[in-house]
């Protein structure tokens, strides 16, 4: 029985893979949600992903099979589920993992998935009723998903044949009807014929004793792999990844905006805003996956849910110099860091957790070129990014003055805590908390200190020094420390008390925590939405503002920067339309996105007249649908 509910549709979870959004055309900053993975299919995809990291994190490969993937709907991992649901011997996989033999793991895991598909297809064919047959087929199809996108990339004709076979199989399985009505009998011959198509392909391509060794582990069919023909595989994130926006969405405080200045009157800043949201400035998998600056630092804040297995040790953290984003920049150290907030950025230099970059411009270039494998950005692009990012302000906090003093609205406990904050402690070299977190200087001192929070890489190293972070807005940026090791501000107080022998009483620790929670608070930390003021409306306003820079760029005939803009904004506008509450206005938004794409196409063809015409149409259309754009 198909469920008609929109909620059920939404709960089914938008099915197509993140990869599918990235196969063709410009990258999208709006990722597609993934349908939940079956544990063994998830373990396989995680094995491929982790097996391509250097060095291979074998502990995580083992976990991929023994534990549920992060966010899994299943309470058990792949091995436990197989033990319960399957007769297939998994020792090949376990032994290969134990030996840390990459090729053997790959071969055994690939065979395992293919055998599982066969096992479920067997169950479907011998099932006595349509419901059981469809249950087994659905399972087989979900397992096939572990191979599907790579088959499609490597062997599109076979992907189509197999796609039709799956359709035939489901169709031939019949239907139980509902309450005794509408039953449709099985067609066993048709089921067998369709199954044969699928099984033959699996036999030739996945149930192979010795799969061709591959430099990059993938699910490319063996018959294609052994030809040596290169296959352009879509970049994918493994199950458990999360690159979605924060919920609730942090409030963005831009200096110019608070002063009532319209961003469309600030083309350099508006272009920088666009670049901050653009995956086009990155390269490699980040670009394909639609990862932009704003993916981690959305709304100038931190994305506490960001998580990529193998690159993140916990949500809100990432190793930006690992093997995934840019192998050239891989430092071969498993050292993910907690994503820092960019609020008040112009006051928080130097940049990087250890303050390695004095200049925000240099830091930004390093992010683009080295961390995320992008092309060298133009001076204009760096100027624009810096111009935009230096507009990020701290969240207003009525309990705090501009020079870091508590106002009358601050609670008494915070006042008591303030005194402790300013008190020198012998355990801290007769310095106080305020010595580094200077209240009148946005609670930082722009220096690096080794407070003993970093596990040293080698004996005698001086690599423990980290840039003093601001304490403003920290109520909303948990967890704390460079690696996010401490979950609460109270635990930060406890850490200092314990490691620096501060000798604080429980009441004093509570007061000091209250002080941190007061100076780290905000009057309005999050955006508020309603039926019409929706996240899409916010996105629509942003994207049309980005586009407004064409008023400056088109007269200058600046093709390079126009194309970055049109490729980014046209794709994002179309992708974001899927999030609209006002679904009936979606076709208009698609048309609007096409107008902008037309600007790009005309510029590529050096037809500036056509570009100007499409841009005029875009502006007219955007104004016309603004009211309905929610």
């Amino acid at each position, binding site marked *: *029985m*198909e*469920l*008609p*509910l*929109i*909620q*059920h*549709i*939404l*709960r*089914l979870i*938008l*099915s*197509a*893979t993140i990869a*599918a*959004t990235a*196969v*063709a055309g410009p990258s999208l900053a*709006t990722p*597609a949600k993934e*349908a*939940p993975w*079956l544990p063994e299919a998830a373990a396989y995809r995680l094995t491929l992903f982790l097996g391509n990291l250097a060095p291979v994190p074998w502990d995580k490969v083992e976990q991929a099979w023994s534990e549920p993937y992060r966010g899994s*709907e*299943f*309470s058990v991992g792949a091995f436990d589920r197989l033990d319960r*649901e399957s007769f297939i011997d998994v020792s090949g996989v376990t032994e290969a993992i134990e030996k840390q033999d990459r090729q053997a793991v790959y071969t055994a895991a690939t065979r395992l998935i293919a055998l599982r598909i066969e096992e479920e297809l067997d169950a479907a064919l011998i099932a006595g009723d349509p*419901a*059981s047959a469809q*249950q087994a*087929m*659905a*399972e087989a199809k*979900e397992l096939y998903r572990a191979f599907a996108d790579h088959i499609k990339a490597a062997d599109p004709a076979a992907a*189509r044949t197999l*796609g*039709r076979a799956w*359709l*035939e199989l*489901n*169709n031939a399985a019949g*239907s139980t*009807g*509902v*309450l005794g*009505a*509408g039953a*449709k009998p099985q067609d066993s011959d048709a089921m067998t014929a369709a199954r044969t198509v699928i099984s033959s392909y699996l036999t030739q391509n996945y149930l192979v004793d010795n799969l061709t060794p591959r430099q990059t582990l993938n699910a490319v069919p063996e018959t294609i792999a052994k030809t040596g023909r290169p296959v352009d595989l879509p970049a994918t994130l493994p199950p458990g990844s999360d690159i979605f926006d924060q919920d609730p969405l942090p409030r963005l405080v831009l200096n110019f905006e608070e002063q009532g200045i319209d961003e469309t009157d600030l083309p350099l800043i508006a272009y920088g805003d666009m670049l901050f949201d653009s995956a086009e400035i990155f390269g490699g998998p980040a670009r394909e996956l639609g990862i932009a600056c704003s993916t981690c630092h959305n709304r100038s804040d931190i994305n506490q849910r960001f998580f990529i297995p193998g690159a993140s040790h916990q949500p809100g953290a990432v190793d930006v110099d690992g093997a995934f984003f840019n192998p050239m920049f891989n430092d071969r150290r498993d050292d993910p860091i907690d994503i820092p907030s960019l609020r008040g950025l112009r006051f928080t230099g130097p940049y990087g957790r250890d303050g390695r970059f004095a200049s925000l411009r240099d830091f930004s270039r390093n992010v683009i070129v080295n961390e995320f494998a992008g092309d060298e950005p133009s001076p204009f692009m760096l100027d624009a990014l810096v111009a935009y990012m230096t507009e990020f302000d701290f969240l207003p906090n009525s309990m705090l003055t501009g020079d870091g003093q508590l106002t009358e609205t601050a609670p008494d406990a915070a006042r008591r805590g303030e005194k402790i904050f300013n008190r020198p402690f012998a355990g801290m070299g007769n310095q106080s908390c305020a010595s580094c977190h200077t209240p009148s200087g946005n609670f930082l001192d722009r220096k690096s200190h080794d407070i003993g929070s970093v596990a040293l890489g080698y004996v005698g190293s001086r690599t423990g020094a980290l840039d003093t972070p601001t304490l403003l807005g920290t109520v909303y940026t948990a967890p704390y420390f460079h690696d996010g090791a401490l979950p609460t501000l109270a635990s930060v107080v406890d850490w200092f008390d314990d490691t620096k022998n501060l000798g604080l009483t429980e009441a004093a620790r509570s007061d000091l925590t209250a002080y941190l929670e007061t100076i780290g608070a905000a009057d309005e930390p999050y955006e508020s939405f309603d039926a019409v003021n929706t996240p899409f409306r916010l996105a629509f306003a942003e994207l049309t503002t980005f586009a407004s820079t064409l008023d400056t760029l088109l007269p200058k005939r600046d093709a390079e920067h126009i194309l970055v803009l049109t490729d980014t904004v046209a794709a994002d506008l*179309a*992708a*974001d*339309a*899927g999030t609209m*509450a006002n*679904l009936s206005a*979606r*076709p208009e938004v698609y048309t609007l*996105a096409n107008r902008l794409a037309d600007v790009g196409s005309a510029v590529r063809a050096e037809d500036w007249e056509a570009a100007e015409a499409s841009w005029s149409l875009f502006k007219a259309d955007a104004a016309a649908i603004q009211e309905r754009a929610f």
Partner: protein
Amino acid sequence: MPHMNRRHLLMLTSAGLATFSMPVLAQSDRLRLAFIPQENPEKLLGDIEAITSWLSEEIGVPVEGFVTIDHAAAVEALRNGDADISFMGALPFVLAEKEIGAVPLLSEVYRDAPSYTGRVFVRRDSGFKTLADLEGRDIAFADPISESGYMYPLAEFERAGVIAGPKDAEDFFGRIFFAGGYQQAMQAMAEGLVDAAGASQYADLLLTPLQQSQVTWIAESEAIPSHVVIARPELDASLRQRFVNAMMKLNMPEHRDKLRYLYGPDGYVATDPSVYDGVRKMAQRYGLL
């Protein structure tokens, strides 16, 4: 598609039903709700506990909930008094109405409406503009007993005059596939495995953002009543009214958060048997009623 283990469901069902095996035909001192699982039964059990405890407080009698294996089991539970209330789609309801005299109480509201539609989707680049363009082409539907994923979209071909009735569909199309769900039907269309898909008006949201921008629809059905909360006919009138009153409170801002425990609609409106006249006619047209 979330995996649903049939064996697991059976276990849940037997465990759930075991607790409620006493006949309760005439009882008005407690209320029993039969839930048909849509996806993760483990989650459903947690949801049931949350909503029934709230309903107990509101109604003033113990409210208990359990999971049934399918519609037939829910209707059977209503028939023999093991359940007083259940939740199901409009088609199963009209069948249950005929079978046991089930009474519709409340209709789910989504996006401000207690109804939805079925649509015929095609790829934008296909060039198909009308239903007649699909003659000889392949189409995927969700399921043969899906209102929005088969019956109502196919009826649009009849209304457009390109087929005389459901039985002519095989001759009109190249192939008809029942893909197993909206998502499967839509993916088959979006990927070019078939030329069109018949599915719920919201089914394109199951595609990727890129795919969504690449598909459109060329026909939309008349309104289909959304899921319905039903009662067994013998349920005590006062208890039924108190249940309806409590459920209507879920529309209030302070209680809206509990809707997520009940298949997650945006709210409920009162409904009556006349709302389902169209569904009954449609069921008759397809020989289901």
